């Protein structure tokens, strides 16, 4: 049962992180539409780093 609670916490953490990234990326794009490409690339990179953390934690907790 504690496994599930742990998994839930991990998902909350990842969700908050990714939400922040996505939100700020959207704001940046809204401010400067011509920088969309660069912002998207940076957003995806950071998202992948976060996902790596989240998955790693999920795997460690089995």
């Amino acid at each position: 049962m504690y496994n599930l609670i742990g998994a839930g916490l991990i998902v909350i953490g990842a969700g908050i992180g990714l939400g922040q990234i996505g939100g700020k990326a959207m704001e940046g794009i809204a401010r400067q539409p011509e920088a969309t490409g660069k912002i998207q690339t940076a957003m995806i990179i950071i998202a992948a780093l976060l996902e790596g953390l989240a998955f790693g934690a999920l795997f460690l907790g089995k």
Partner: protein
Amino acid sequence: MKIVQKSIKFFTVLAIALCSFHGFASDSDKKNNDQNDGGVVDTKKEVEEYILHHIQDSHDFNLFSYTNDAGERKHFGFPLPVIVYTSEGLKTFMSSEFHHNDDGSVVVTKGDVKLAKLHGKIYEIEAGDELEFVDHHPTNAHKVLDFSITKSVMGVLLVGLLLLWWFSSLARQYKKRQIPTGFGRVLEPLVIYVRDEIARPNIGEKHYRRFTGYLMTVFFFIWILNLLGLTPLGFNVTGQLAVTACLAIFTLVVYTVSGNKHYWGHILWMPGVPVLIRPVLAIIELAGALVIKPFSLLVRLFANISAGHIVVMSLIAIMFTLKQSLGVVGATGLSLVLSFFITLIEVLVAFLQAYIFTMLSALFIGMAVEEHAHH
């Protein structure tokens, strides 16, 4: 515009057909049980075993297996060579001698050595004739050094040969012409992308040429292996801890060996920090540079890919676990739709993980060879 619309329709139908194909490929492995009670429990355990078996490495190349009408288990595939270093030296034989047995009951005798396979690992029996084990750990045997050509090794060799073939023929084309023809046209933009978007910005103009070879190898290797894992052939190479660990160690070696004085200076005796704190920070920085960075590369690739495979297989298994509640059509339809979309995401993840690994490797290498004017 019409051609584009037609192409989009064609490729959508093709993609749906192909992605649902691997839902069927795994179908034949389940027995047909029409029981209404007790069927759910058995199905769940079978699904778990199936998924675990397909995540792990295997000593034979099994496309699918089924139980025919006579009750025998038929396998469609071919055995792979087993190469082990036992207490009596190197022993080589085909894995068909194990007769697809994975619970230690089939004993292969080579010379004076008795070998048995338990859960994918090969053990040498020390005393007695049979493998006895308690809770998955054998009590009368020890593991041998296993150099077999397993399915993942075969995948690595396959992709290695493929890359060699593609890129050597691309390189040869430049002797005769400026712009490549044929499949080289697909590869050239990717090669230029790795060089101009990953290598050059991160490593800098002065040193990027030394490392572009390694970065391109890593990029295409991981990308093609990830894509291979999505096919119905049942490969799971980048989802093996050993493969990703190896790649992470390669990156570690590359950026440690090419670190210059500035790099080590900043790690061990960093400027701008009070002298008394420097030893403490040095330990932390050393751990970060030598352990944490490659470890994060390792875990990121491994966890993303194997989690993706587990999710895809679980969604396909919905076909069987929800057969009772949703009926055959409902369960199959739901499973096909979900696994189709997850497979699309997995295709994106395949490229993304290769790109992230390569980019972070380039970043670490760039940090190691960076030379800058002191402030």
